[in-house]
């Protein structure tokens, strides 16, 4: 597994920030702390749904959140995400050029977290950050089975439907934070 280069990370960060997203870089050891910061310090939220993945489990994200007094739901996410502010999960890829995170796979909890939360916190492994748009298509195209779902998410939801005035935060999350984790 190759690490994410500074160049690719900087590109990703710049592109995501350009669409009103936030971006952090951390290690697996500090991931729990980074998630807590992204939720509580940045936005003052104290509850969240967490759609777990092996990485999030290994990094002890749930423990870190609970340890900081954050009410965290790891099941019944469909129910709880209607009211919980934060939505946390890991995305399978990211596209540096556009500042996008990419969810693949049918697991619904991860998708609910990306839809219903007010703040989506998305963790992604550095080695899963793909540099270019065309490379992304090649990567997905080369998978042994085409995923049931591929969702490219670039920043929070937005619209300009009224008088062409851009408003961030419509049906999907009002905010999006990506946390890039250095691979070991």
């Amino acid at each position, binding site marked *: 597994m190759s690490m994410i280069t500074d160049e690719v990370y900087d590109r990703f960060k710049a*592109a995501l920030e350009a*669409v009103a997203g936030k971006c952090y870089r951390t290690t697996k050891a500090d991931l729990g702390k980074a998630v807590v910061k992204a939720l509580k310090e940045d936005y003052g939220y104290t509850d969240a749904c967490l759609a777990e993945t092996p990485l999030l489990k290994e990094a002890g994200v749930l423990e870190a959140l609970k340890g900081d007094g954050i009410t965290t739901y790891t*099941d*019944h*996410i*469909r*129910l709880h995400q*209607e009211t919980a502010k934060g939505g946390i999960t890991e995305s399978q890829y990211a596209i540096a050029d*556009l500042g*996008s995170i990419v969810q693949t796979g*049918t*697991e*619904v909890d991860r*998708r*609910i977290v*990306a*839809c219903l939360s007010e703040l989506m916190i998305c963790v992604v492994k550095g080695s899963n950050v793909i540099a270019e*748009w*065309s490379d992304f*298509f*090649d990567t*997905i*195209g080369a998978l042994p089975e*085409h*995923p*049931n*779902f*591929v*969702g*490219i*998410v*670039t*920043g*929070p*939801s*937005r*619209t*300009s*439907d*009224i*008088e*062409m*005035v851009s*408003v961030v*935060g*419509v*049906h*999907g*999350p009002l905010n999006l934070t990506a946390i890039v984790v250095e691979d070991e």
Partner: protein
Amino acid sequence: MATQEELKKANDKLNQEVKIALANITLNKTLGKMCGDYPAKRAKANIGIDFEANKEKLVAAKEDAANNVDEMIELFTKNATARGAKVFRAKSNQEAMDFILKFCEDRNAKLVVKSKSMASEEIHMNEVLEDHGIDVFGADLGDFILQLDHNTPMHLVLPALYLNRDQVGDLFTDFQKHEVSHKIEDETKEARKIMRDKFIRCDVGFSGSNCAIAETGTVCTMTNEGNGRMVATLPTHHLYLFGIEKFVRRFKDAEYVFRVLPRNGTGQRITAYLSMYTGTNQVVMDKETDKKADKEFQIVILDTPERRSVLADPDFRKVFNCIRCGGCQDMCPAFALVGGHAFGSRVYGGGIGVMLTQFLIDPVRADAIQNICLQCGRCLDVCPVGMPIPDMIMILRERKAKANPSSVQRFAIETVNNRKLFHSMLRIASVAQSPFTKGEPMIRHLPMFLSNLTVGRSLPAVAPVPFRDIFPTIVQNVKEPKGKIAIFAGCLLDFVYTDLARDVVLDLNSIGYVVDMPMDQGCCGSPAITMGDPDNAVEAARNNIEAMHAEDYDYIVSACPSCTEELRKYETFFEEGTEEYKKAKELSEKSYDFCKLFYMLGGLQDSGNDTPMKITYHDSCHLSRALGVTEEQRALLTHTNGVELTEMFEHDNCCGFGGAYCIQYPEISQKILEKKINNIKDTGADYVIVDCPGCMMQITGGVDAAGLPVKVKHTAQVIAEKRGLV
């Protein structure tokens, strides 16, 4: 075929809609700003993108799918079904609607939430479901606003742009039965609240598609708001509708579609959400128990006779390549003024909207709205698939004229083609016009029913002596001529702008060329083409091929880009290999616009008197787009001593003349002109240089009506004056 009465009714309705649109201050402001900002926004989003390379790949992908549509349907159905989707191929709009209605009724659906689907508008889905007691909500903010306003989309991407925040606020207040603030942020928050409830409670989610991939059985939906993801993730039943024109074959092909769709559609490098669904996906069946299962994913493919008729028509097959980006709407000077309610049908608007309306919605409506196209070609600058929109509209126009020849138009064309009669009429007009000119060089007011022709624009008077009578008196001092050039004057140079024609001759003399004027030349035939009468255009071509004797000259020069474009097309009117074709080809290949020819023949010099001359430049549609001449004239002008060029905003946008257009739609023409005059004014220039006599007429008239002390000149005139040739 539509009857004359149906067509007249459609035209009258359209004229009313145009009037309403032009009077809508909100529309003027929002749409005007959007279209004004669009080119720069799009250019910024395209930094680093090889648009032409993507166009090649995208067109290849779309054409492959269109040429193999049955295979696409079969492949897609097999692959989507293998992954748990259900696919129904609807052979008509009615069949699709019946299926969708039954689907909802069989599941006791009381609430359907729609993310966005133009195809659903085509089949009147909202109305049909509502009539059967099923609530439908368009979740896209624009769609929701339209629903509340009981109206149809005004724009492909921003459908409710014709309403301002106050009007939206009132609609929300009415719907919510409590006061909703008129601040846009608050309105959006309110929409979020309203829709969140609908997303969570709905029985059936409904989506449209931007692109369907046959090899993987994948459908793709692109949004900014998140409404697409909501309806795909929350309800346990998901209906998905798209037409057969949405196919591509491979997953990789979607790369080309989505590289340009957002950049052209909204000036974004990518929208907030792009979702690709292959077969079914997991949903939560019951939020209390958290039970999960695969949702019911029902795809409906619209494979209708209307869509097949597009494929069957060789002139219009290309319509299947359209990716619905809306770029043609955003670039169109007429659309920027009247929007999609006027320049469109209840579903589709703008340039491509004419074709989509013709084939998929209502051909009578298409007959009317196609007139709004100015034929300026600005849409061609941005289309990601190179759709020849103006040409396609022209073909529709020709078909309409053949089916319903207007006696007035035929008379006009036949008169123009009868050279002797036309020229006599113009000579008579020159004398008879004196009550209107009142001794001035401009006609400022025409009486009664013609009066709207002079609103915002004065007309030039017909010249007292036509150029064909002046020409023999011009002394051409050319020692050791390098060659002989024939001048094709064209109607406006012959009968109005005679000084310009004279300057063309003297300019060419100054670089060593003798100029001749074959006197039997007549109208180039361009007006006949514009009015959809190609037969008379061919007659005009025959006359000029005979008259111009191209074999006797090195070049043929014209200072009217419409004429030049027409002359260069003559060879296409005749069968290859024939005598006529050979003669036409010789004439076509020798015909050049003055600016290009003068530059080509060594006319570029650092010369001219040093008198300061602050200029700006208007790019004529025909010269810049059809003939591709934009740099030669700028070089000629900026190398002339004393000349200082300041480019105006939207220098490449139409002046509103459009040939017969300014007579058919004088209100639209006048508003386009108004924008142009303001752009000229903003540069602070004393002169606007214009290399098309049609544009010269329009802009001179506009400048005069606005009382601006700006002079209008052709590059040929600047050269002649600055180099002391006149």
